[in-house]
C-alpha cells in the first residue's frame, strides 16, 4: 500500500472507530457505510493535523475518491 494511503487509512480508522476498514485509491464515500458528511469533515481535520497541512474548500470539493486525497496530500508535502 502507498505510504500516504496507508496513513490516510489509519487516520480514517481512528475517525470512524472501525478497525477493519481498508481504503484503496478508488474508494469513495459511497463505498464506506460510516463515511457520512460529519465523518468526512472530521477526516479532513484529522488529515490537516496529522500532516500539518491546510486545504482549501475548493480542493476538498474536487476530490472524487481516496486517490485524489492521496494526491492532494502528497502535493502539499512535496
Amino acid at each position, binding site marked *: 500500500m502507498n505510504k500516504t494511503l496507508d496513513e490516510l487509512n489509519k487516520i480514517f480508522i481512528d475517525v470512524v472507530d472501525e478497525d477493519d476498514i481498508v481504503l484503496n485509491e478508488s474508494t469513495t464515500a459511497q463505498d464506506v457505510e460510516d463515511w457520512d458528511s460529519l465523518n468526512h*469533515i472530521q477526516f479532513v481535520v484529522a488529515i490537516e493535523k496529522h500532516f500539518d497541512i491546510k486545504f*482549501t474548500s475548493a480542493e476538498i470539493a474536487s476530490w472524487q475518491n481516496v486517490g485524489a486525497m492521496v494526491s492532494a496530500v502528497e502535493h502539499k508535502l512535496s
Partner: protein
Amino acid sequence: MEIGLVNVGDEFNEEFVLSEETHEGFMKVFKDRHPLHTSTKYANKYGFSSNVMHGNILNGYLSYFVGECFPLKQIMILAQDIKFSNPVYLGDKLLLVARVAAIHQSVSVVELSCRFTNSKAVTVAKAALSLRALTEMDVKEL
C-alpha cells in the same frame, strides 16, 4: 464568513458555581443518583472529602458556553472529549478558559482547548471541542 470572528489564540472565560439547583436538576433529568454523588459517607470511604459532583455537569457548562457565550452563533459541536483530573464539590466556583486552538477554514471547523479550574486554581477538567461553523447550505438544510 462568520468563522472569521475568531482567531487562533483567542481566549474566552466563563465562571460557574456548581449549585444545589444544578446538582439536583442533573439528577432529576438523568436519574444518576450513585452514592458517590449523593452520600458524603460513601465518598469519604473512597478518599473524597464530600460527595462528588457528576463530571458530566461540566459537559453541560461546555454546551452552555458554546451555545450562549462563544462569538460564533451558527455553530454546532462535532466532537467533545473531556478528561476529569480532580473532583468537583457542591458549591465549587469554576473558571472555564476556552482557547481557540486551531481553525480549519476548508471545512469551517474551530477547535477549542478548554480547562476548568476551581477557586484554588486547581485544574479539575480539560476538554477538547471541535465546532463546525454552519454554512448557508447547512442552514438551508435545517
